[in-house]
């Protein structure tokens, strides 16, 4: 079936670097996408979302980019900090559906 997947299982960066986490989706009917952060031993936490009528959305130190042509989603974290170390998941939703479909996740490791 169609699903959401991630290219990189682990990303290691130095503190202060910019991080880019990628996600591919295959369901062209998906119209809403969310990035979650999951710290060790905790539940996922909402970071930022984007609708399919947008290409880019910015938050505090985070930017989500959506490329519908190639069905690709990315999360950019500026000036990565050790506190950003976590697993990051993308999730998709189809309008009118009651559930999210999650990707496998990418672990981000930030070295001081």
């Amino acid at each position: 079936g169609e699903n959401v997947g991630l290219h990189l299982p682990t990303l290691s960066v130095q503190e202060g670097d910019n991080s880019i986490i990628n996600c591919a989706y295959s369901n062209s009917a998906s119209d809403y996408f969310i990035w979650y952060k999951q710290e060790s031993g905790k539940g996922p936490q909402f970071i930022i979302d984007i609708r399919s009528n947008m290409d880019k959305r910015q938050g505090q130190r985070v930017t989500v980019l959506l490329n519908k042509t190639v069905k690709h989603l990315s999360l950019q974290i500026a000036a990565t900090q050790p506190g950003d170390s976590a697993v990051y998941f993308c999730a998709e939703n189809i309008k009118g559906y009651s559930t999210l479909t999650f990707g496998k996740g990418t672990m981000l490791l930030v070295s001081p």
Partner: protein
Amino acid sequence: NAGVTQTPKFRILKIGQSMTLQCTQDMNHNYMYWYRQDPGMGLKLIYYSVGAGITDKGEVPNGYNVSRSTTEDFPLRLELAAPSQTSVYFCASSYGDPSGNTIYFGEGSWLTVV
């Protein structure tokens, strides 16, 4: 603010035993969900509910049951536990459907079946 509260945090079960994972939310959310997360994997939906008295199967419902008798509570029942049910279980809730309503997660329940 309590948010989504799950109990127990950790549990070890023997094969064939049954147990209930409790979940309660104090945000007056209509939608509630149960996900499981296997090591190194994403979350898979077990069951969900869009309101009291209504439940629906998710992607991996076999071996589980749920009920939603109140808006606040959404317990997950494991009958005849199997090693394949060793996982981390997350309960979540949202005011409405996910496209525009933030889903809030509990802290997780770690279950080991031996």
